[in-house]
């Protein structure tokens, strides 16, 4: 199965299509992706959100799963696990994202 799986860069490219609707910055640039694990079990992504109190975070998790699922056949499991540790900090954003937001 592994030979038909995408690489980490391809998964990250798919995740870059998912953006925070108000910040206008994608989830990779925001530093919300904590890990990408690709193996015989399928694709497992560890992702956080900027705040636990906003329902948009849950929607972005679903959008991230859907974006990555387009890379593989339906038989390959794609899982997005929401993680809280370590808490997201603005410093996790990419240099480009910081520049875009006026740092």
């Amino acid at each position: 199965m592994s030979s038909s799986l995408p690489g980490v860069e391809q998964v990250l490219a798919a995740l870059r299509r998912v953006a925070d609707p108000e910040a206008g910055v994608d989830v990779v640039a925001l530093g919300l992706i904590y890990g990408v694990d690709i193996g015989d079990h399928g694709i497992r992504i560890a992702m956080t959100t900027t705040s636990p109190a906003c329902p948009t975070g849950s929607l972005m998790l679903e959008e991230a799963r859907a974006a990555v699922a387009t890379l593989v056949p339906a038989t390959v499991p794609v899982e997005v696990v929401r993680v809280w540790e370590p808490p997201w900090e603005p410093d996790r954003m990419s240099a480009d994202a910081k520049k875009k937001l006026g740092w």
Partner: protein
Amino acid sequence: MVTAGKDADLPPLGRAPLLALGFVALVFGVLGGLWRLGWAPPLPGTEPATFHGALMAAAFFGTVIGLERAAAYGRWPAYLGPLCAGVGGVATAWGAPHIFSASLLVGASAVLAAVTFAFHRRQPAPHLLLLLVGALCGVAGNLLWLAGFPASEVMGAWAGFLVLTIVGERLELSRLRRPSAGALKLLAVSTVLYLVGAVALPLHWKTGTAVIGVAMVGLALWLSFNDIARRNLRHHGLMRFTAVCLVGGYAWLGLGGLLLPFAAPAGPLYDAALHAVFLGFVFAMVFGHAPIIFPAVLRVAVPYTPLFYAHVALLNATLAVRIAGDLLDRVAWRAWGGMGNAVALALFLLMTVGSVIRARRPAAA
């Protein structure tokens, strides 16, 4: 699959009836408001007019904010909050015994505070603390309402529920722009001032309104200079639309704060100050975020269209007419402005539902 929590969440289809209950409170609250302005809308009794403030601030916003937070929490007990607020609103409009309807509103705000506390415990942060303070203002307001205080004295706590909740949400996003230490101090001082004013209000009207007014101006300044909205005005589409709504809302919050210290517990200035805040600021936030939050809560797409500017423009223009009528003592301006506000809210609902239907329709070949 997306793994988010151990306990069962309420599916989006189950959340829709809760939102519908909230909209019942909104419809009766608005009709009651029109009645107070001299119109004669069809009403089952005098309750929607008498309890206009409770229907709007505690029942309608208790439902929608409770629903938003419950969807983020992702476990079914959190939905008891919006359920209580919605049923409490219907009970209020239908003239159920006060102890019944007001207790439901207290229960709703207590669930919201508990859920917000859980967020803060999971990940302590200043914006979550502010959301918790906002939720506790809701509890305090509803307890005062249950105890029989008049709406004018409860208003400080109810407005605190909404204003501080919104500021907490904006603080979360403002972290993306690294607010300065001075800006955070202004926010902290304004928040503490607000709480002092809300406590003082039932004890001494003039002191309470003066302190709340200053705090609102401080919060409006903080929002104007630190929120990402001002920066987003340069973007296009939904980002700019949301930013336009918010930046306009901050101006109304500031105006409400300037007018409040001169208001009596009823009358034109009271109408002007409160509706600058509740309609100009709070509903601007609703309009600006509906295309973002509806999809998150109900899992329905609300595609942005420039037509959305119609209800925003109508609300702002008619609110200006209403407040001008209040300040110049022109009763007809106030009444027609208020009617325009109601039409703007109805147009918002139509635009939103229309957008959902358009998104579900298969694309033309």
